[in-house]
């Protein structure tokens, strides 16, 4: 199959940060023998499979998709990739039409891949049977090709992945107060090649939520660090099925994050921790297998039965 990742519903300033989300999925699809259009600029009819990354704040665009679906039916394969918690009002309510538009599209989507397990929401939307949780796993194609195994070359103390909001800033400040560096990625400014390089050279990558109301960890952040063989210090709060990713990190409560980072930085064990996290992740997970699982949703069986194309 050919998967068309349509990204034009995202502002160009967001493109820089989408790679951490979409690249592992693209690799997993390719590892399963499929073709991928990473940056689709048009929607296509079957046999192309459209994947739209959730962020629908343009009503007219949603109307257009719904019209296409109405006109073409099964010949327009519509998939949604949801990376946010749809029940997190702080995120979803920034744009008042974001959630309503998502709900409109969920009603007609052929499949939904969600990074976060929110079964009650998708059941309420009536699309649970078309929805699969996409677990991120190891992909050889996503592995940083310049892994640093020499401790002396891990010259960055800590990288805090994300924006420096108050909740995160306190941790960064605590690390700095103790005399260590803490670089905040600010993905809106720094191109991926720069932040990727910093993560690769970091002793510790900090994975924290935005604030105490958030329910789920960030698979993309953790997996980015693991593929760079960088020790990940995670805030431990998630109790859902994706909390298995904590197995590959050093997880602790919010109050202990700064101290735990400093311990690792000073222990000279950072490289060993990072490499062992990667090896365990590599041994126990697989992006290829994860994608294989989400491709078992009914629509893909239908597509396979019609030779890659939807019903004519």
């Amino acid at each position, binding site marked *: 199959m050919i998967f068309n990742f349509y990204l034009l519903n995202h502002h*160009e300033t967001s*493109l820089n940060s989408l*790679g951490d989300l979409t690249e592992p999925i693209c690799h997993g699809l390719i590892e399963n023998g499929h073709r991928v*259009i990473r940056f689709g600029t048009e929607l296509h009819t079957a046999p192309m499979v459209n994947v739209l990354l959730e962020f629908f704040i343009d009503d007219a665009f949603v109307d257009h998709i719904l019209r296409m679906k109405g006109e073409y039916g099964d010949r327009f394969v519509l998939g949604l990739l949801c990376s946010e918690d749809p029940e997190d009002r702080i995120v979803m309510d920034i744009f008042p039409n974001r959630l309503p538009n998502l709900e409109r599209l969920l009603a007609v989507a052929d499949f939904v891949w969600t990074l976060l397990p929110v079964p009650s929401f998708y059941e309420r939307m009536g699309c649970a049977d078309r929805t699969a949780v996409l677990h991120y796993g190891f992909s050889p194609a996503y592995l940083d090709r310049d892994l640093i195994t020499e401790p002396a070359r891990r010259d960055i103390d800590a990288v805090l992945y994300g924006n420096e909001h108050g909740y995160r800033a306190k941790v960064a400040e605590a690390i700095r107060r103790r005399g260590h560096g803490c670089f905040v990625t600010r993905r809106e400014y720094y*191109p991926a*090649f720069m932040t990727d390089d910093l993560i690769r*050279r970091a002793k510790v990558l900090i994975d924290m939520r935005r604030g105490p109301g958030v329910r789920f960890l960030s698979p993309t952040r953790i997996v980015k660090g693991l593929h760079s063989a960088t020790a990940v210090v995670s805030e431990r709060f998630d109790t859902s099925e994706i909390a298995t990713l904590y197995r590959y990190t050093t997880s602790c409560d919010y109050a202990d994050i700064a101290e735990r980072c400093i311990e690792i930085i000073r222990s000279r064990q950072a490289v060993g921790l990072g490499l062992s996290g990667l090896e365990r992740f590599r041994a126990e997970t697989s992006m290829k297998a994860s994608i294989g699982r989400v491709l078992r949703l009914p629509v893909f069986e239908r597509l396979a039965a019609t030779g890659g194309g939807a019903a004519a």
Partner: protein
Amino acid sequence: MIFSFTYPNLPLGELRALPDLVLPVADGLIENGHHVMRFSSALWPAPVINVLVEQFTDDALTEELLKARAEHGIRFGLLCGDDIGDATAAEGGTSRRGANLRRLLPVADFVWTVLPQVAALEAAGAQGSVALVRLGFSPRALNPDLVPEPGLRGFDAVLYGDGTPYRLAVVDELRRRNIACFCLDQASSPPLSWRAMPPQLAGDILSRAKVVIDLAEGPGRRFEAPTRLSRALHNGVVTVSEQLAAGAAPDLQRYTAAVPYAGIADQCQRIIESGMFAELGMAALAKFRQETSMRDSMAAALRLPAFARLAGS
């Protein structure tokens, strides 16, 4: 050796345009066995060799760099991606960029330029320390998901670069001929600048193009644009390039379908209608891969006398 790329002189908004210039050089250094930090937020002391991208419009920052060199023995080199004739002549010769460059050239340990302007840089103060970095093939820059199937080349033509009037005239002509032209430019629709594109997304678009158009911003270009051409070649796409003026020595244009400006639209149309576009793009890549090497280019650039000294100390 250890190389650290740092960009204190560049505005935040410019950073996203760097991959096409910085990554090939970094790749070539890594292929030569060196350790490369692609981004450092500060200058490193010796033995680390700092690399700064030429564009010094701020006098104070230039002063700081000169001071770091004089007082702390900071080692640094300059990487020039732009025509310094433009830099020094800009704003009627009053540009601080040109003036600051002339201050830095005599004290820089080395100067790498991707454009053939070695003599001009030496004359401006960098005598004996300038090397031309010819961008060449690197397996690290190769798109792993090339598109050899003509049927999957969904874009007729892609304009890679800002949409200046000179370029958009060609785009308009192509569109008049019903050739869809996708512009990686913020003023176009959709508003997507090539500068905002992470390499894997830019690569995805280029690899699915029947042709890529490489034009100067305006008439009178002195040099080809090796960064754009190299990016296109690594994505297996045929580039229709504006032929350089007589006397100029083409380098990567040898791997393109170069024609004079007036013939660009015709050339694009000919290639698209021939149906051979994918084959031509893959053949250009194969030739580029066979005849050039980023590893060798950087090895040559590292033969400057400065590196014997820097490596030995």
